[in-house]
């Protein structure tokens, strides 16, 4: 009798309850809250860990890359001698020689050829192009002397940024003691300074780090993604709507579903091989172009978009469909008026995720020749182009120290675009999402 009294919980469920429910509840309450607290703690921990990783990643990229946004320039006093420049046809002139002449004027004591070559190496070969552009734009400058800031060679840039140490033995350094002396002379004359690196944002790729820029790759990525988006969004949306709303549920559609899910897991390089075989070899499309790149990336993003869109369609409550069909709407009217508007935010999210994936994709593009060294900035879908991740890959592979910082800077630009795209996704979702 007394033992049954002790086991009051057992009695609580029966009619002969000895204890009030609230006492039983209270006893377990502390435990329930403890579980909840523990879970919240775990959640917080994982968020902190991921934030720390993100912060480490970002700081390492930023600290490596921010210096690429600045570039060392040297001021040269250039005499635009009319003897060396043809007024009628200035573009034909030897601007390299003019630049060399003005360098010689700065260092009259350097005479032998070997020393001169060492001296000229301090200045970027881009100086001549810069001068040419200037003269072409302002032919009236011919006959005058202009003071021009021209880019220094990347080794000088690295020295100014502290990546080349003077303390290192001369034969292990990329700059000789003599060159260091010349650079110091420039510094004494206030002829050398670090300026914002406009070239990086306006130029295409180059063998010379100080002349290399990301703009060609940005445009290439833009054209490529445009092809991908224009093709994969409508196709993916149509496929998802058809499979979800119209297709009969049978073995064939099950088979298709399994295959789409498999495609999403196929390594992206396989799509590159497919693109190589089909688009380049069979259809004979031009290599290294945004058109082919976009087609290949479309193959890659389609499964993602279809799966996300189907999930979004599945999330639309069936009662909405019944309501529409119940008043005698056709399936198409039901889909376009009621189902699609509700599913669109989810579909857009899936599309943006797919696009972000495509933006960062390298492997399949290597297969279709987008890894080529391309200096020209692409003007259309059929111009040879690089894309940002491939550009990053190419620079990361280069031996010059100056390309290392450009790699990180390019990653920063890529990340900025990703952030922009995701922000666009959020805004679009807000726009289309009706909370009612």
């Amino acid at each position, binding site marked *: 009798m007394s033992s049954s009294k002790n086991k009051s919980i057992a009695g609580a469920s029966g009619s002969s309850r000895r204890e009030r429910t609230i006492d039983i509840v209270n006893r377990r309450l502390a435990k329930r809250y403890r579980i909840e607290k523990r879970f919240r703690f775990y959640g917080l921990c994982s968020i902190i860990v991921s934030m720390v990783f993100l912060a480490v990643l970002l700081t390492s990229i930023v600290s490596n890359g921010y210096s690429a946004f600045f570039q060392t320039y040297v001021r040269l006093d250039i005499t635009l001698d009319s003897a060396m420049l043809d007024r009628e046809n200035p573009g034909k002139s030897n601007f390299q020689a003019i630049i060399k002449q003005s360098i010689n004027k700065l260092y009259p004591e350097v005479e032998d050829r070997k020393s001169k070559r060492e001296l000229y190496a301090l200045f970027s070969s881009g100086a001549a192009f810069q001068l040419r552009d200037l003269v072409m734009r302002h032919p009236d400058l011919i006959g005058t002397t202009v003071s021009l800031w021209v880019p220094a060679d990347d080794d000088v840039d690295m020295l100014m940024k502290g990546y080349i140490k003077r303390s290192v033995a001369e034969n292990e350094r990329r700059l000789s003691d003599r060159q260091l002396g010349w650079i110091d002379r420039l510094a004494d004359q206030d002829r050398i300074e670090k300026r914002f690196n406009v070239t990086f944002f306006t130029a295409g790729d180059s063998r010379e780090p100080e002349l290399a820029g990301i703009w060609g790759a940005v445009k290439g990525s833009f054209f490529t993604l445009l092809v991908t988006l224009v093709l994969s969004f409508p196709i993916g949306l149509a496929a998802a709507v058809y499979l979800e709303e119209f297709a009969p549920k049978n073995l064939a559609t099950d088979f298709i579903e399994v295959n789409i899910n498999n495609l999403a897991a196929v390594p992206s390089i396989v799509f590159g091989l497919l693109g190589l075989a089909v688009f380049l070899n069979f259809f004979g499309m031009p290599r290294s172009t945004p058109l082919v790149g976009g087609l290949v990336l479309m193959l890659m993003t389609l499964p993602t978009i279809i799966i996300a869109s189907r999930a979004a369609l599945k999330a639309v409550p069936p*009662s909405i469909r*019944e*309501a529409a069909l*119940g*008043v005698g709407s056709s399936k198409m009217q039901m889909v376009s008026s009621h189902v699609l508007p509700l599913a669109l935010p989810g579909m857009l999210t899936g599309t943006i995720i797919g696009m972000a994936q495509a933006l960062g994709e390298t492997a399949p593009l290597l297969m279709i020749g987008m890894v080529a060294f391309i200096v020209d900035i692409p003007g259309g879908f059929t111009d040879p182009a690089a894309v940002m991740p491939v550009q990053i890959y190419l620079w990361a592979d280069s031996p010059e120290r100056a390309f290392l910082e450009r790699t990180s800077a390019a990653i920063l630009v890529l990340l900025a675009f990703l952030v922009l795209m995701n922000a666009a996704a959020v805004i679009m979702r807000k726009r289309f999402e009706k909370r009612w």
Partner: protein
Amino acid sequence: MQEVLKKKSLEKRVLAPRESRKTIGNINVQNPRMVCRNVDVYYDDKQAIRKVSIDIGRNEVLAMIGPSGCGKSTFLRCLNRMNDTIDGCRVTGKILFDGKDIYDSSVDVVPLRAQIGMVFQKPNPFPKSIYENVSWAPKIHGLAESKAEADEIVESSLHKAGLWDEVKDRLDQPGTGLSGGQQQRLCIARAIAVSPEVILMDEPCSALDPIATAKIEDLIDELREQYTIVIVTHSMQQASRVSQRTAFFHLGDLIEVGSTDTIFTKPSHQLTEDYITGRYG
């Protein structure tokens, strides 16, 4: 050995599909609007409706009553082929609408459902404005070409559903923002906006207060002049107030059909009597 056999035969008896029970009462009416014969409904392998045969007359209100889960909604949804939308749902037997088999392969469900409207058991307004909820169907059917026509239909439908006074100042607000009872009346307004010839109502008043219920019952009375109405209800009073004929379902069988008066005063089947007197269960 014998025991095993015995057990087996017992199992078989339980698992075998039960024969349908015979319907008591007169299933026929003069000049019927809809004729259902030997309707079976299966959800995958599970049978939900067994050999139901019943006529639905013109300008009459047929009430369907029965315990929860007996298949009232299932049968109602057969009448405008809403069951087509459920995967694994199979309907056999004949359902004629004005003499034409609605399950015939040549029948187009779009005009069929425009003629046979439905109010669902759970309120399901579109996630759109109140105005759009009512005006959408008339628009897609071409009943309201102009804004004025649409306005007119919206106002009269909401009036009939007894919702106009409550929502006339906020027609552009979301229909899903209404209370449960208001949503159900909005769904009724949506169903009658296309002036269907048959209206199927699945417990239209289950979420309504007595005043709104009275309004809907008045509406049903009024609609009966022109239309045919089939209503599922759990309220005996409502069935006896609005309907001319009543059908009692039990576990997938149509047990008894008859004029509402007879069913509620002199039910023939024991189950019917138990149910309407509240002794069921």
